[in-house]
């Protein structure tokens, strides 16, 4: 599958207004979305045979082969995405530590029990570096998604040859406009806990208000995306980009949607 994208930067003060404009354009209420995103880096285990050789290879589609090569090539970062809700976040238990012990226990108990790491669903999202040398004014890249088992994802991912790198949170609203998925979002970072970093995904979520936006000004990113089943079909790719241009034209007075810098979306592990 291929993904065609356009991006725009939305300053924080415009966010509310744009939400309303998008709601009017798409005739739907925004769907709020909170996602945990874990970044994994593929590595080649010594002595691991990555590709099967033989007759079975002929049966696989060329696209699949390419994808397989990329996933196992040891040179790409992949993301594991897990949706969460606002109730999954911890309450301000840590800040209430000095309060009376009874209240503290009940508070922290209720705060932590709401999020169950063992039941967290996950999805693997692979994104290639955007295609180079396309004359079209949209960002085009190869993509693939797959659902993963629930619960602790670090173990299966390790077994498949991925190591955990970092994690962050994405907060935003989704709109659907015909074939286009519009995602107005921003990246939130966890408060730095120090020791826990880089060992694995968190089992508890900190209170929501402790998350800090990556972009200090609190600005948002508007992402308009169309996925195309068959990236080799020029006709479809053209239609998809026409749709995106149509949206760009419609939103012209509000935001400027444009192509992203190719290298800023580089997912290769150096």
């Amino acid at each position, binding site marked *: *599958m291929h993904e065609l994208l356009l991006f725009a930067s939305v300053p924080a003060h415009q966010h509310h207004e744009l939400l309303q404009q998008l709601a009017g354009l798409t*005739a*739907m*209420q925004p*769907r709020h979305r909170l996602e945990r995103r874990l970044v994994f880096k593929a590595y080649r285990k010594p002595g691991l045979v990555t590709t099967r050789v033989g007759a079975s290879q002929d049966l696989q589609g060329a696209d699949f082969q390419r994808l397989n090569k990329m996933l196992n090539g040891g040179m790409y970062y992949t993301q594991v995405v897990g949706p969460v809700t606002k109730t999954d976040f911890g309450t301000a238990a840590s800040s209430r530590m000095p309060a009376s012990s009874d209240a503290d226990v009940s508070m922290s108990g209720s705060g932590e029990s709401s999020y169950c790491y063992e039941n967290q669903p996950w999805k693997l999202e692979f994104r290639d570096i955007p295609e180079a040398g396309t004359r079209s004014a949209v960002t085009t890249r190869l993509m693939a998604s797959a659902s993963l088992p629930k619960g602790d994802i670090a173990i299966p991912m390790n077994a498949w040859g991925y190591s955990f790198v970092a994690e962050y949170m994405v907060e935003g609203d*989704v709109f*659907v406009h*015909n*074939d286009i*998925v519009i995602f107005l979002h921003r990246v939130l970072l966890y408060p730095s806990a120090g020791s826990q970093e880089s060992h694995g995904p968190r089992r508890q979520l900190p209170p929501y208000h402790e998350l800090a936006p990556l972009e200090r000004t609190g600005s948002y990113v508007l992402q308009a995306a*169309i*996925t*195309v*089943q*068959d990236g080799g*079909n020029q006709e*479809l790719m053209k*239609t*998809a980009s026409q749709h995106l241009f149509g949206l760009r034209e419609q939103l012209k007075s509000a935001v400027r949607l444009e192509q992203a810098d190719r290298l800023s979306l580089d997912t290769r592990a150096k």
Partner: protein
Amino acid sequence: MSESFTLPLRPLIEKRERPDTLPLEIAQINAQWGSFRDVTEESLRAKIEEEKNKDPWAEDEEAEKPTVEIDSTERVDQLYKRRAEITQFAMQAHMEALFALDFVSLLLSKHTPRQAELSMSAYLKQVAPLGSLNAEIVNPPPKSEAALQDIKTVSRGWRLQNFNAAANKLLKSATRLEAEVASETKYWNEVLAVKDKGWKVCRLPRDRQALGVQYGFLEATPIFRDRGLAALRRAEDGSLLLDKGLIPQRARTVRVRVRTQKQYTGCSKVSWSLPSEDSIERRILQARDTVYEEELFHEMVREARILGSQGVTTRQNLVQVPVSEDQEILLDLVDVDQGEPAETETHTNEHDTLADAVAHSIRILLAYAHRQNLRRRTQPPPPLSQKRRTIPEYQLLRPVMAYLQHTAHVRSLETFLNEMAEVLKSAGLRCEITAAPFASVRLPQAPSSAPKVEALVRPFLMPFESTFTGNLITPESSFCVKVRTSTVAPPAGTFYDLTVNLPHYPEVKPPSRIGLQNEAAAALTHLILLDIVSSIARTGAKPPMDEAGKGLSWEVAYAHHGELRALSRSGNNKKMKVSLSREELRVETWPLHGVGVPRREEDQSAQLRSQSWRSGSSEPSRPSLMEFVHEVSHDRP
């Protein structure tokens, strides 16, 4: 600014002392009419009468009359002549204008030859050299005092006239503006009233200058969605006009009629409870209802096309849905004002409620389909591929059909089972039947994620299932009938699932899927017959002791034919035949001579004993089945 400042626009005319004009007038009369000597009152009156009678237009009419009578060819001639005249006049005017132009150009060519040359005709250029005409100011001869006075008066009069004309124009435009402001105010007030009522008012996408009101349904099929927007135009007097473009203004609605045995027995209401006065609100509501109704009908026809295999037929403006053998439902789109059925049709109001219920349900189902559309639209779309996403037909007729068919089947089965129970009761047998109609329809109890309205509709889109369970006469034996109706999933129609528990006939398994009602009834009758036979055999196993101390014991000969026999040591062999239908239970016994071979006919009829039980006929003297069996079990011929 509270006091309005009035500015006089008309010039003030000084009222001068009018000089006495009587001598002048007398002189005028003398000049026109002659001296006063002959004037009498009579002659003056006669003159006035004459003036009065004379029609001012009489002369014109007389002149015109002959033109009316001339025939068409002459008219055409005349027309051409007049046209020629007109063109001639125009040509002449043109020529004169050209002459004037040439003259002015020649005059100007003295001073500005380059510019004047441009507007000169070629002929003039040839004939007269440039600058050959000059103009000079000539001192006019001094005018007389009287002439100067005249000119003064005339110019004064002109000026006054111009002032008057300007004032008139200003005042006229003021009144026009006032009217315009009033109508504009009215228009905007009405627009605001519409907006305050909660309608969405927006600019029209095509016509950016005009306002529109959105009353349609966003989730409807595109053609109907786009029709849900109408322009709010301003009439001359400022009232609001709802401009729906080319769409006819008539209000239309879907009418539901029920036809039983070729006669109309029910019709749904077609009039709405709209605000009675003809307000803009009413027109918007009517437009909204019409667009909804037309979409409803459109979708029903679309759905009816795929239901051809289930007996649904479509005409140009009619959908016929069969419900049962002798009943069908007709749906058509009619104008609201002529929606009442014609009087010529034989019409009773027996099924009006049914028709209304159907009318309401299809509308609820369309609203549900709209909600489903919204749900589908707001989900992340699948990847773009060459296959176009088609919108499946809405479920409008199918749930209604399924419900009605299911009800019909369940009712008839219930009647059948009740009749059966009556028959058995009259024979002194107990048979308990419990019915659970629409067991599959479970209304949502706990609040689910879906909105309540959707959760309410959803069970009605699933296949319907009703169950009937009953205990038979022999203990431990029971039956269970499941009636399933589905018009959505492929095995369309109604099916009966029979499960039985007959400990005496473990090998009897009813067919798992019965499609016809008669077959299901026959299978049930057969099962009950088997049960009766086995219960007779069971009571017969403990032979009743009569006075002689002897009794016969019945044993089953051919269970599936309801035949039993009793063998006796004394040779009084007997045969019993049980027959069961929904009307009666009949038991016959006759003696047997030799196993299975009846004797001659007349003997048989002489010794035949029979008893039948019917439902409803309650003869207290009649023995029950078991008493009858007991009676015929005596070991005597």
